[in-house]
C-alpha cells in the first residue's frame, strides 16, 4: 500500500500539467518571465494622478543588469500611492525608500509600460548573513502553488540565497531559455 502510494506520487510528478488555476511563480519562472532584471538603487518614488486612479512611478539607478538590456536608469509603475492627503494602497505592493538597494524583476508589455513582476513578488532585498555574506531575500507572500507549464507543485518559499548564487541562477535560466 505504502509502495503504491509512493509510486502514485512519482506518477503525479511525471505526468503533464492539468492543474487548476495559478498565477504566481517559482524563482526560475520569475527569471524567465521578466524582461529585465537589475540590481539597482531607488532614486525616487512619486505618485501621479491618472484619471480616477493613482500610480506610483519608481526611478531606479541600475547598478548591475542581470537580464535584459537596461539604460543607466529605469523606471517602473505601481498601482496606488500617496498623493498629498489622498492615499491609495494596494496590498502586496511594496513601498520604496530613496537610496534602498534591491533586485528588481521587471516586465515591459506591448504598451511600453514597465511593471514590477507580480508586484511585491518582484523585489528582493539585500541582507547580510551571520557570516557576513551578502544574501538576497524575498519576504514570504501569497505564492504560487502549481506550475502551469509543468503541472508540478512549486514551493512558494521565501527566497533566501547568496547573491552570488542568485546571479549564477539567473545566468543559467536565461542561458537555458536562449
Amino acid at each position, binding site marked *: 500500500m505504502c509502495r503504491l502510494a509512493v509510486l502514485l506520487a512519482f506518477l503525479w510528478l511525471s505526468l503533464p500539467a*492539468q492543474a487548476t*488555476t495559478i498565477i504566481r511563480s517559482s524563482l526560475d519562472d520569475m527569471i524567465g518571465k521578466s524582461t529585465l532584471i537589475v540590481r539597482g538603487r531607488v532614486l525616487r518614488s512619486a505618485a501621479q494622478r491618472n484619471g480616477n486612479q493613482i500610480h506610483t512611478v519608481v526611478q531606479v539607478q541600475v547598478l548591475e543588469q542581470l537580464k535584459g538590456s537596461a539604460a543607466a536608469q529605469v523606471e517602473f509603475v505601481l498601482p496606488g500611492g500617496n498623493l498629498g492627503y489622498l492615499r491609495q494602497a494596494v496590498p502586496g505592493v511594496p513601498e520604496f525608500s530613496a537610496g534602498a538597494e534591491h533586485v528588481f524583476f521587471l516586465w515591459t508589455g506591448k504598451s511600453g509600460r514597465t511593471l514590477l513582476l507580480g508586484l511585491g513578488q518582484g523585489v528582493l532585498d539585500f541582507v547580510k548573513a551571520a557570516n557576513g555574506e551578502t544574501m538576497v531575500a524575498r519576504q514570504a507572500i501569497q505564492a504560487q502553488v502549481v506550475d502551469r507549464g509543468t503541472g508540478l507543485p512549486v514551493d512558494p518559499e521565501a527566497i533566501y540565497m547568496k547573491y552570488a548564487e542568485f546571479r549564477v541562477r539567473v545566468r543559467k535560466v536565461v542561458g537555458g531559455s536562449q
Partner: protein
Amino acid sequence: VRFFVAILAMILAVPSSGYYHFVRYTGPAGATQSVPLKFDVSALPNRTVMVLASDQGAGRVSQPEAFPALLNLIREACQTWNGVSTSDLRVAFGGMYSPATAQTTPGIDLDFEELDPNTQGYGSMITFGQTVNGPNGSFVSVTRSIVRLNRDLRIFATASSGPSFAEAFFLTVTHELGHALGLQHTFTASTMSTDVIRSTALSRPLDADDIAGISTLYPTSTLSERTGAISGRVLFQGTNEAVHLASVVAIRPSGQAVSALTDRDGRFRMAAIPPGAYQLYVHPLPLGRRDTPGDVTLPLDPNGNSVVGSGPFDTVFYQDGGTTRDPRFASFLTVSAGATTENVQFAVRRRTAHRLTEQTTIYSYFGSTAVKPAYVDSTGPNRTIVATGRGGLVSNNTATAGLSVSFLGGTPLIPADGVRPYADSFLAIDIDSASTFASSGPRHLVFSLPDDIYVRPNALILAQTPPQIDAVTVNPENARQAVVFGRNLRGDSRYYFDGIRASVAGSDSLGNPILNIPPGIRGTRSAIAVYNSDGMNSLFVQTAPTHLFETGDSGFLNLRTAAIPAGSESIVEIEGVGTSFTDGLTAVGFGTSDIQVRKLWVPSSNRLLANVWVAPEAAIGPVSVNITSGFQVVTAPLALTIRSAIASAPALSSSIVNAVSGQSGIFPGALITVPGQNLANATFVIGDQAAEVTQATASGVGLRVPANLTPGFALLRATANNEQAVIGLTIEARPPVIASVTGSSNVAVDGSQPVRAGDLVRITVTGLADAGQAVAMSRLRVLIGGIEHPVIEVLPVGDSPASHRLNVILSSQVQSGSQPLTVAIDGRTSAPVNVVVGQ
C-alpha cells in the same frame, strides 16, 4: 490578488466592526474606535450598486471572441453578491460603460488592462472623505470602486479547462468585487481568501465567512435576529498586552468558518454567524511584508499612517478557562440566533518568529489532474491529498520532526504512516480507507508541532464522483436545444458553454438533460462543462467537448422610446432585428451607473421592455444601449436621450407594493401603493383600463387595479399637466381568498369561540385550484400571527366557487388575542382575516 483604496477623511468614532473590512482608527492616538469604508446604501438607487464593464474590453482582451462569455461571468459574480439575503446591499450588472461617459451615482467600473503576467487583477475603492452617520454607525462613503483585470486571458486558463476560463475567471471577479464592496482578505479559504488557499467554486461561490463579511458591513434589519455573534479579547500571556490584528476563527468540524480581526485593544466581535456549535481558535496574520501581512491592508490612524499588528504568537484553540493547542480538548460554543456569546478570552504566548506555514495549498488528484481545492470523492479509491506551504512541514525530503496531522473533529482518519514527505518539499497525506463520511462538505486539517499548530480550514471538500459528459447532440426536435449524455449528472448540475450558463429545459425520455443552447455566433465553437453543486466539475476528468454554432449573429437594435427625463423612471421598448433575446440570459445596459434597469421583460426573441430609472443628476444628452444575450452582444450608439426633467410632470416609481397589510403582489382588484411625484391630480390607466385612485399623497397614490385585467405584462400610465409617465407592471393571478375559519367543532372562530394552542383550525379557501382539483401541500403556506403553520390536510370541498379546506394545528407560539391569518399558494398571498386566539 490586490486591493486598492483611497482615503481622505475626518472621521467620527464608532465601534470597530471586527470583520476583515477596510478601516481607519479615529480619535486620539491609540484610540480603538474605527470606521469602515463602504457604499452608502441609503444613497444608492434601490439600494443597488451597479457593476459596469468597459465597452473597450472586447478590444483589449487577448481573445476578443471570449468577451461575451466574460460579461456573462461578471454578471454571475454580481448575482452571487446580490444573492446574500442578510446583506442590505444589492448588486446588479449594468452592462457596459463608456469610459468617456460621466457618472454621478456611486458604482463599480470593471476594465481590462495590461498587467504583468503574474497579476490577475485588483479591486479598489475610492472615497473623497465623506463620513456618513448611518443607522449602523459611521462610515467613510465610497464614491466609486474600480476593478482591473489582466487583459491577457491566458492567466485565467488552465490546462484542464481548455478554452473555457469560466471557473478561474469567475472566482477572480467575485473576489475582486468583494474587495470593491469593502471586504479584505481572510484566512478561512473562503472566496475572500487569496487564490493560494481559496476553496470556493463556480457552483458554490460564497462561504459563510464571505456572507458574514458582507452582511456585517451592510446589515439588514433582521441580521441579528437570524444569526448569532461571539465577542471577546486576545491578550499576550504575562503582560496582558492587547494583541492587535489577531485573527479569531469560529469553525465547525464539518462545516464552514467565520472569522474576525482584533482591534488595537485586542477586542473582536464576530457577527452574522449561522447558529450551531463552534470551536474557536486564534492565529496571527501570516508572515509577509510588514506593511501588508497576509496581503491584508493595515488600518490607518487619523494621520493616514498604517497601524501594524502585534507580532507572531502561538495559534491556540479556546478551552473553557484557558487555551489549548490540542483541538480534541477545545471547547464548543453554541451560537444561537439573536444572541451574543461574550467575554471569550484568549491569552496567547508571544513568539519571536513564525514557526509553521500559515498559507498551505492542498491538492487532490483525479488521474493526472491536480485539483485545488482538494476534492475527495467519498466513494472513490483515491484518498491522498498533497499539501504545500511556505516551510515548516518538510525540508530536504524529510518531514519536520514532531509533525503530526489530523482532521478537526477526528474524522476522517489519517493512518499512522499516512503523512510522508513528497517530492522534496511537499507533504502527502493519506486518508484512511476505512474512514466513513457521515456527510459531504468541508473538512479542516490541523498541522501540529510540539510548540505550534496551524489550522487549515476547508483543507478538503468531501464530494461525490465528478460529472462527466459522454456526448452532446443537438435535440432532433428543437435545434436550439442540446441533449447531454453523461455520468453523475444531477438535478442541480450547472451546464456552461464557455462562461455562459445554459438553462435546463427538461429531460428526454431516458432522463438525459435537455439544455437551451445560449444564443451564439455562427462559426464559433464553445467548450461545454458541467459543474455539480458540491464543486466537482467535468474538467477534472475530461477535456471539454465542444459545440459548433452553425447559426447566429448579434443583429441590431431599434429603440421605440427615444427620450427619458432625468430623475424619473419610464418604460423603454427595444426592438431587435435578428436578435435572440432570452429571458434570464439577456442583460441591458445604458453605459452609466446613473441609469438603472429596474425590471426587464422579454416578450420575444426580438423585443424587450424595461423599466429604466434615470438619476436626477444624470448628464443630459444621448446614451448608448448595449445588450448581452449569450454570446451575442449588440450596441445601439446614442440611441436613448436623457432630457431635462419637467418640474410639473408626473413621475412614477416601480417600487409598488400591495397596500393591504400582510398581502403582496399586484393582481386584478388589488389595492396598491404607487410611489411618485406630481400624482395628486393625475389620472391613471393600467392596461388600457382606468384605475381608481383610492388615496393621494405628496409621495404617491393608492390605486385599485382594474378587476378584470388579464394576468401578464401591463403598462401603468399617469397623466397630469399634459405630461405622461409610463412604467411596466406584471399583473399576477389573483391570490386565494379565505372564505371562513372554524375550529375543531366546525364553529366559526370568534371571541366567544376562540381557538387555542393545539386546536385544529379549518380554513376554507377559494382560488387555490379548479373545483375538485387536488393541491399539493408543499405549495401552501399558512401564517397565523406571523407564525408558519404546516398544512396537515387539504381537501376540495366546493364547486361554486371552487374551494378547498386546509387543516392546521394552532401553534403554541401564537400569542393570544386577535391574530391575522393568511394563506399563500406559490407566493400569492390572501388578504388576512383575523382569528381570535384564546389563552
